[in-house]
């Protein structure tokens, strides 16, 4: 166990003292501050005529003030954080010859990869938590809203999902840094996966669904439904969509399902029309639970693959 602790401590210190982290952190901080500022400006105007506004605090995170909301920003930019933090964790050490030297010391081999992953996850957690706190503080100053307990809990759940999501991308980056000897190649591979999932999966899902069910239209509802089912199933393979759906329902209590409106079944439609009030946190959680579990599962799978590949690799000194 002591090996894990030593590696973890060193990696954490490395993250926090690196220029890479500083640049990344200031960039995210800047963007979130701008978003929070713009959102609070627009919310002020919108709230003027409403007698009893609900969940104003959560609006800070989900309302699209200028271009995009904070939640959308993390969904899109979060992968990049994980990739940038992890793409050279193993192969840089291999190329510099430090990996074989660490492994020649009396520690278990998995202490290296576990320590690196854990340190990354902790860094991500601190990053997310501090940004959410900054936005909260800014909201308090600009709008004077105090979050209720329900809202705080929702934000907490949102933070946990975000940490798992970014950790998944850290896992992807570490996997590539184990597989590829060259730092540039592993960075490129990570970027390729990111671009694939953020742009091509939703596009591809659309095309594939249309190819399967070509006769869908407003007059053929059954085919339309089938088309949407296929499209949805394919796009759920993307962690970005998984994350977006999960967080959208958590931070927006008025959203009662992650599915698109056309696809909502008749009974569900009836019940959601009857109860127009916001969902309780418990109900929101029930809706997104499968998404959260899937996210955790793919993160675990990704890390497990890295672990196995790393444990089986031959360690040569040069």
């Amino acid at each position, binding site marked *: 166990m002591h090996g894990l602790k030593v590696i973890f401590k*060193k990696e954490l210190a490395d993250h926090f003292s690196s220029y890479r982290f500083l640049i990344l952190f200031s960039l995210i901080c800047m963007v979130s501050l701008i978003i929070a500022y713009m959102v609070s400006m627009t919310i002020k105007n919108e709230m003027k005529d409403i007698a009893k506004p609900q969940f104003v605090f959560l609006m800070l995170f989900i309302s699209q003030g200028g271009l995009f909301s904070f939640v959308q920003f993390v969904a899109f930019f979060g992968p990049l954080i994980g990739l940038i933090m992890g793409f050279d964790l193993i192969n840089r050490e291999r190329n*510099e010859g*430090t990996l074989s030297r660490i492994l*020649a010391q*009396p520690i278990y081999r998995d202490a290296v990869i576990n320590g690196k992953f854990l340190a990354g996850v902790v860094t991500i957690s601190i990053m997310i938590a501090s940004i959410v706190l900054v936005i909260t503080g800014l909201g308090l100053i600009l709008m004077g809203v105090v979050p209720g307990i329900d809202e705080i809990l929702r934000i907490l759940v949102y933070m946990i999902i975000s940490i798992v999501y970014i950790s998944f991308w850290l896992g992807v980056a570490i996997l590539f840094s184990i597989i590829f000897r060259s730092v540039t190649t592993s960075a490129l591979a990570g970027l390729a996966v990111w671009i694939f999932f953020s742009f091509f999966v939703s596009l591809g899902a659309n095309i594939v669904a249309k190819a399967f069910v070509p006769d869908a239209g407003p007059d053929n509802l059954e085919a339309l439904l089938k088309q949407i089912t296929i499209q949805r199933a394919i796009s759920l393979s993307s962690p970005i969509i998984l994350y977006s759906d999960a967080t959208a329902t958590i931070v927006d209590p008025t959203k009662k399902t992650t599915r698109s409106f056309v696809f909502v079944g008749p009974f569900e439609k009836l019940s959601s029309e009857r109860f127009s009030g916001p969902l309780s946190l418990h109900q929101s959680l029930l809706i997104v639970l499968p998404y959260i579990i899937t996210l955790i599962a793919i993160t675990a799978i990704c890390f497990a693959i890295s672990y196995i590949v790393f444990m089986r690799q031959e360690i040569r000194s040069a």
Partner: protein
Amino acid sequence: MVVEEKAIIETENLTKVYKGQVAVDHVTFKVFEGEVFGFLGPNGAGKTTLILMLLGLTEPTEGMARVLGVDPVREAIKVKGLIGYMPENMGFYNDLDAIQMLKFMADLNGLPRHIADERIEKALYTVGLENEAKKKIGAYSRGMRQRLGLAELIVKEPKVAFLDEPTLGLDPDATNKMIELIENLSKEQRMTIILCSHFLEMVQKLCSRMRIIIKGKMVAQGTMETLAKEKFGVDSEEYTLEEIYMKYFQEEA
């Protein structure tokens, strides 16, 4: 001078097949406590692979090895705690300074803080880096990096040390310093040292016994005298190790 009593390292038919190629071919040898043992051989002869197997970093395809009676395959962690390893291309974290680097390595070995601090100070002084201790390793010259590698061994205080080409690419002055330091490790720290090198003058000066490996096979083993006698039938006084080595090499090639 050689205390031939306890075999510290023992191998039997140690073999490694790497990607279909035989890197180490049925090597059997013993290294005794307190001696400086030299490994000679052309590039790619399997010296490094042999060391990696003894360290438990690579699993042998066949045969067995014992380091201080411990099996490096089954108890790799224990073996790694007993052995100090200085690879050919020493990797350091360039953004750390010497003290931070040595502390990190001491932590990995589980040394308590007060013992580590004491040893680090002594080690830096021994290798003559005490004035550069706060400098980032990235700014170190090759000679300084190699000496820092030795400092690491002094901090760890292993029973056995593997030195892979410790003088490669060093200038004559730095080379002499290195030889002195290695001698010091052997005599004062009573470390058993296994030395891989192409710098035959150094091997001749330092090693009590040596072995020649060509294409993964052990072709000769013994003291200077026995090696010379085998090939030339005379005492070693007349021949340098270089001449003996070339003779073996030409015959094999």
